[in-house]
């Protein structure tokens, strides 16, 4: 029997809907017994409840925010131990592991078990394996979709590997609909991308870098939405980057299609202008687009259309130490994802309610989980001093990837405690 009492927390109401995006804060004490939330009482009343328990850990939150467990819909893990530790310190409770992240491609039940084992061994924030949609992620033959789900995958995806043949895509969707399997898709016509490495626009032209046109994403999204309509499958679109795409998702949802979508945190903070100077840290897939896109993506998050993912990808130094186009794509973001979001809140670009919705409530709904802070639920939560300034450096990052875009930049959001599936995985 172990008990944890969090006193004087500002609980952010997770009962947020699109109609009610403004979050309400209330000051409470929260008691967790054996990993399960047992009491939520008015501030000051919690301490009496467990005074006799010798194993009671009391944490005086002193007004810090308690947010429902943050769920990352997309992260890549090469080294599970270091990266889940980074997530724990970063305040993230649950993370979807992309199928091309671990030692092998997650296209067999054995590979799924390998990830689950690595996650259990690490004992940090809990990983939710994403299985491959096609064998070897080649986009040609269907993976054993049902078997992968039965072995514990939370959803299936082809990561950002293309499924070029639309007939294969249609078959995947039909098969997924048969078993009501959630599939996660990306929107990119790789022929239209033309080997580009950044957004097609004035900056790409000035730097002489091949651009990826907006239509590379939108034509692919349009095609896939029509196929979703035809097949009736449940589809989540990962890492959208264009303003037009947000409008297309809104329209599809209004039409009644079972589609959801997310945006990578990088696309909410940065634009193609940040590539100036050829900084390979900003070489990401999908590319950072222009300010109009960034603002439309923020709108999409604020109105509840889009979830936010870390799109974390740790690279060793050599992978990024190259001229821009020759460097590997991807950013390391797990350590700083929550502070990046809270900094957007501080800058009045994101509401706190939208933050909770986009990083916890919506991902939970998409995956069929719950991380709400309610009596009887397993404790998935993060305690964070949202106004405290934090500064990250290469030395303070836990992630093995130092390719983080906000090193040396003042952010807010000091994580004090992270609980994942009832377990304490980080305490400052």
């Amino acid at each position, binding site marked *: 029997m172990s008990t944890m009492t969090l006193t004087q927390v500002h609980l952010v109401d997770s009962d947020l809907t699109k109609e009610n995006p403004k979050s309400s804060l209330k000051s409470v004490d929260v008691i967790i017994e054996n990993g399960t939330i047992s009491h939520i009482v008015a501030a000051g009343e919690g301490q009496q409840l467990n005074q006799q328990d010798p194993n009671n850990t009391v944490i005086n939150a002193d007004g810090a925010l308690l947010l429902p467990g943050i769920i990352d819909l997309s992260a890549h893990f090469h080294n599970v131990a270091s990266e889940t530790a980074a997530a724990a310190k970063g305040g993230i409770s649950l993370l979807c592991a992309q199928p091309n992240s671990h030692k092998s491609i997650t296209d067999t039940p054995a590979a799924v078990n390998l990830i689950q084992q690595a996650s259990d061994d690490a004992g940090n924030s809990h990983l939710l394996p994403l299985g491959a949609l096609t064998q070897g992620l080649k986009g040609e033959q269907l993976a054993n979709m049902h078997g992968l789900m039965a072995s514990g995958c939370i959803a299936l995806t082809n990561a950002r590997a293309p499924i070029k043949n639309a007939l294969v895509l249609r078959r995947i969707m039909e098969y997924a609909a048969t078993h009501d399997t959630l599939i996660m898709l990306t929107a990119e016509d790789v022929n239209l991308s033309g080997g580009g490495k950044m957004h097609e626009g004035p900056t790409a032209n*000035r730097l*002489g*870098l091949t651009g990826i046109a907006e239509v590379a994403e939108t034509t692919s999204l349009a095609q896939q939405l029509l196929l979703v309509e035809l097949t009736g499958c449940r589809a989540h679109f990962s890492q959208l980057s264009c303003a037009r795409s947000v409008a297309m998702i809104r329209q599809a949802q209004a039409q009644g299609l079972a589609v959801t979508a997310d945006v990578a945190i990088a696309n909410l903070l940065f634009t193609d202008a*940040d590539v100036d100077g050829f900084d390979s840290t900003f070489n990401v897939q999908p590319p950072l687009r222009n300010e109009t896109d960034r603002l439309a993506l923020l709108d999409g998050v604020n109105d509840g259309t889009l979830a936010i993912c870390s799109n974390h990808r740790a690279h060793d130094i050599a992978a990024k130490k190259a*001229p*821009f186009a020759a460097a590997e794509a991807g950013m390391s973001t797990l350590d700083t994802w929550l502070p990046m979001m809270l900094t957007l809140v501080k800058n009045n670009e994101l509401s706190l309610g939208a933050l909770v919705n986009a990083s916890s409530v919506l991902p939970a709904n998409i995956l069929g989980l719950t991380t709400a802070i309610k009596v009887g639920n397993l404790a998935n939560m993060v305690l964070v001093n949202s106004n405290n300034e934090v500064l990250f450096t290469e030395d303070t990052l836990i992630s093995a990837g130092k390719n983080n875009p906000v090193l040396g930049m003042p952010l807010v959001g000091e994580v004090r405690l992270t609980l994942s599936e009832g377990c304490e995985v980080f305490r400052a």
Partner: protein
Amino acid sequence: MTRHADPTQVQLTADGRLKHFLTTEGLTKSLLTEILDLADSFISTQERAVKKVPLLRGKTVVNLFFENSTRTRSTFELAAKRLSADILNLDIARSATSKGETLMDTLWNLEAMYSDMFVVRHADSGAAHFIAEQVTPGVAIINAGDGRHAHPTQAMLDMLTIRRHKGTIEGQTVAIVGDILHSRVARSQIHALKTLGAKEVRVIGPATLVPKEMAALGAKVFYDLEQGLADADVVIMLRLQKERMSDALLPSESEYFKLYGLTEAKLALAKPDAIVMHPGPINRGVEIDSAVADGQQSVILNQVSYGIAVRMAVMAMAMSGQASEQAAEKSQGETL
């Protein structure tokens, strides 16, 4: 959010002197003019029997060419020799990196040889910039062409050509014709021309080869050669690579020549005293008619000889900028 200082300033010392030469973008008019003036003075030394000046005596210059090039490399080699430097030519296109060595590994190896200057050509945009950020302080980087981004010494020799033939760059209308999309030369020319006061810079070609974003650099986009050439003072033809046809950017060489090839009849639309330039090597009958390439208005061969002088100028200036920065840092270290 941003974490960058102005990236074009990497090539300058704290007091605004050239220490690398990576791009013509972001350099002041006076600095570009200083390059042209110094190059002018070197042209006179080139006409002497003894052509060497001792500005880089005892310095080691490494020609680091990750892309094949005979002409540009030879002019850099000659320029270094005429400045009395020791020069090492490394044809990386055929050596180390093709064996899997990374750009960084190659650089560290070369730095261990205590070189003072790298002249770099690389297929990736930003490569010279990247190397400049990585090398030991005191080593100068001269960009001899990076991807589609910049070819600043070519642009400056073109500026020198215009200035010597037209007297000034100010007030000139310059038409750049052809494959603008893939051209590092065009980008560097546009920045230099705008800074040096050209009246109008036009880019001319089909939409597959002329990005509309060129307008953001201050160039006026034309899809029609006749309209674009009207009353131009300077006509710069760009080389058309054979790959453009297989990349589905153009139907054929013959259709391209018909629409965008420079003939005497089309040149007649420009000002009567207009000059015709080309960074070479030329494709006769593809982008330019032989009669024009060899004609009265062509200054193509003059460009080549000015190239050595311009390269001498930027090498001398960058080396001296590095020396002054090193001296400044040393004296700062002593006062601390």
